[in-house]
C-alpha cells in the first residue's frame, strides 16, 4: 500500500478516539470548564465498554456503558469545580489519578476477557472511491458515528438556542444569572457531555481499535485531545482535522518501519508533540484572545 494512503488511513483510525474526547472537551471548554480529567474519562470509558461488552456480547451495550462511565467521572469533576469552586486544573488531574486507580483496580479482572468488538463495515459505493473510500468508509460504527457528531456538536454550539446559553455560561455567568437562567445547570450538562464523549472515545480504543483492555491504555491520548482543542480554538471541524493530524503522526512511525526505512524511533515518537508546540506557537496568541472569558479566568488562576 502507498505510504501516504496508509498514514492517512491510520490517521482516521488512530485519531477517532482523540476526536471524540476533543469534541467533548470543546463543549466543556465553551461552557467555561477545562477538564484535564478527560484522559480519566477515556480510561473509564475504555474499561466500562470493555467490561459491558464482555458481559453482554454486544458492542453497542459496551459503548453505552463506556459513555456512562466517562460521563460519571466528569460529573465528579463538575461537582468540585462548579459546586465547590475548586481549581479546575488541579481537580482535573486529581480526577485523572482517581480514574487511573479505579480502572487499574477493577480492570485487572478483564485483561484476559474476550469481547465482541465492533467490526469493519465498508459503505457500499462510497468505499470504492479511490483514497477517500479507503480513508473514511472502511471503518467501524463508532468511527461513522464520529463523522455525524462533528456537525452535530457544531450545530449545537453555534446554531441552537441552548448553544448560545452554553457559550454565554462560558463567557459571563453573572449575565445569564441576571436574565434568570441557570448557568450552573448548563455548565453541568456541558461537563457531562464532555465526559460522555470522552467515554465513547475510550470505548472506541478498547472495543473497536485495540480490542483489549489494559491499565493506563489510553496512554496520554486524552491530553493530546486537550492540546488539539486549544490549537483548534474550540471549533469542532478544526478539532476533527487536528485529531486526524495527530492520528497520522502516530501512524507514521510504524508505517515507515514496516517498510524498513531507517529512522530514529525516539525522534519520530516526538513528532506529535513537536506538532503541538509548533501549532501553539503559531496560533497561540490568536487562540488566547478568542478563548471564552470564563476560561481565561481559569488559566490566570484568579479566584472564582
Amino acid at each position, binding site marked *: *500500500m502507498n505510504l501516504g494512503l*496508509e498514514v492517512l488511513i*491510520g490517521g482516521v*483510525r*488512530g485519531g477517532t478516539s482523540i476526536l471524540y474526547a476533543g469534541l467533548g472537551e470543546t463543549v466543556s471548554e465553551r461552557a467555561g470548564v*477545562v477538564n*484535564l480529567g478527560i484522559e480519566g474519562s477515556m480510561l473509564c470509558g475504555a474499561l466500562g465498554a470493555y467490561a459491558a461488552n464482555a458481559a453482554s456480547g454486544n458492542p453497542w451495550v459496551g459503548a453505552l456503558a463506556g459513555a456512562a462511565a466517562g460521563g460519571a467521572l466528569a460529573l465528579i469533576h463538575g461537582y468540585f469545580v462548579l459546586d465547590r469552586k475548586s481549581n479546575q*486544573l488541579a481537580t482535573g*488531574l486529581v480526577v*485523572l*489519578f482517581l480514574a*487511573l486507580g479505579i480502572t*487499574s483496580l477493577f480492570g*485487572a479482572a478483564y*485483561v*484476559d476477557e*474476550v469481547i465482541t*468488538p465492533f467490526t469493519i463495515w465498508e459503505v457500499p459505493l462510497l468505499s470504492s472511491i479511490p483514497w477517500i473510500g479507503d480513508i473514511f468508509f472502511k471503518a467501524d460504527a463508532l468511527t461513522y458515528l464520529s463523522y455525524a457528531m462533528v456537525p452535530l456538536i457544531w450545530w449545537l454550539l453555534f446554531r441552537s438556542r441552548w448553544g448560545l446559553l452554553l457559550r454565554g455560561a462560558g463567557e459571563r455567568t453573572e449575565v445569564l444569572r441576571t436574565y434568570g437562567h441557570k448557568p450552573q445547570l448548563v455548565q453541568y450538562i456541558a461537563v457531562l457531555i464532555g465526559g460522555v464523549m470522552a467515554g465513547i472515545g475510550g470505548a472506541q*480504543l*478498547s472495543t473497536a*481499535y*485495540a*480490542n*483489549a483492555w*489494559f*491499565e*493506563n*491504555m489510553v*496512554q*496520554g491520548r486524552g*491530553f493530546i485531545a*486537550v*492540546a488539539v482543542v*486549544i490549537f483548534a480554538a474550540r471549533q469542532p471541524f478544526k478539532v476533527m482535522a487536528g485529531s486526524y493530524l495527530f492520528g497520522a503522526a*502516530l*501512524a507514521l*512511525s*510504524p*508505517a515507515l*518501519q*514496516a*517498510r*524498513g*526505512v*531507517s*529512522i*530514529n*524511533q*525516539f525522534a519520530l*515518537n516526538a513528532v506529535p508533540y513537536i506538532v*503541538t*508546540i509548533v501549532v*501553539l506557537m503559531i496560533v*497561540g*496568541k490568536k*487562540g*488566547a484572545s478568542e478563548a471564552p472569558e470564563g476560561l*481565561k479566568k481559569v*488559566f*490566570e488562576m484568579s479566584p472564582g
Partner: protein
Amino acid sequence: MRKSWMKLVVATTMLVASLAASSAVVTSAGAASASAPGEDSKAVGFIFVGPKDDFGYNQAAYEGSQAVKKAFPNVKVLTAENVPQDDNAARVMEGMVSRGAKILFATSYGHLDAALKVAKAHPDVVVVQQGNFIEGDITPNTGTYFGTVYEPVYLAGIAAGLETKTDKLGYVYAFPIPQTINNINAFELGALSVNPKVKTYTVNTSNWCDPAAQAEATKSLLSQGVDVITQHQDCTATVIKTTEAAGKMTVGYHADASKLAPKGWITGSEWAWDDMYVDIVKTALAGDFTGSKYNANYRVGYKTGENPFVESKFGKIVTAKEKAAVASAKETISTDGSPFAGPVVAQDGKVLFAAGVVPTYAEIEATAVFVKGVVGDLPKS
C-alpha cells in the same frame, strides 16, 4: 498572562504524563548483621516493573514468587508491583530490607542499577536481578539469572517459516534491548533454516504496553503482506487479536494465548520460573549463595536442561511434519548446536559467527545488530 496559560497547559500535560508512570510506595531504612548473605532470612522481596496480572512477563514473575511462598511457608514473601526502573526501585527494596528481607529479586531489566546500589549498601542481603548482565566484578551478594529466551523463539521461527505463504514474518517489539534483539534474530534464523526466502519485518512501539500503538504496528505489518506476526510486548492481546481478525497467523510470547487465536495460532514461548526461584531462595537461605552458580551472570538453556522459558503448545494448523522439524531442531540445540551456530551474517554482511562456530550464551547476549533477513533498523538513541 494571556499567552502563558497555554504553555501552562502543555507543561502540566507533560508533568502529568511523567507522574502517571510512577506510583510505587516509598519507604527507607537500614539493617546489618554478620551472617552469610541471605542466610536465615525471614522474608523474600520481589519487585515487578508492571502489574502482577498482565498476562505476560510480570505475571510470570509474580507466579514464581507465589511458588516461593508455597515452598517456604515460614518465609514471608513481599511483593511490589509497578516499580519504576529508577531510584524508586532502590527505595522500595530498602523498604523490604527494613521489613526483614535478606533476599531480593529485582525482576525487570531496568532494575539492575537500583539492585546493585541496594546490594552495596547491605552486604548481608542477596540481590538477584532477572535478565540483565553485571559488567566486571560480581560482589559476593549479587547475581543475575535468566533463561535463553531465544531458544524457544528459534523453534517457533521454524514453525513460522514453514507456515508462511508470503515469506514475510512480522515482529512487534517495544525497545531494542539485548533480549529482544536476540529474539528477533533467533526467530529469523529459525525461519531461514527451513525457508531460504523468508524475511522478518520489525516495528517497535517504544512502549511495553500501548494497545492502540500495537494495533497500528500490526496493521502496518499486515499491509506489507506479512502473514505471521509475533511480538515482544508486556501485554500481548491486541497484536494477537488484530492478526487473528485479519485471518493471519500468530506466534505467541510470554503466555499461552491460543484461545485468542483459535484459527491462526502456530505456537509460542512462555515462562516457567517456579523451580529456579525456589532454588535460588533455598541456596540463599542455607547461607550458600556466595560462590554458588547464582553468584554470577547465570544463564540456563536447553543444554543445561532447565530453561525457564518453554515452548507453548502447537495450534491446529501445524502439521505432524512441521512438528517433527521443530523437534529435530530442539534435539540439535539441546546437544551440540545453537540457534546461532555459524555461519550467522549481520544485516550489513559482516560475519557474526563463522561457519562451524557454536557461540556461548555470553557471546550471543552481546549481539547488538540484526542478522541478515531482518527488515528494519535498530533505533539509534
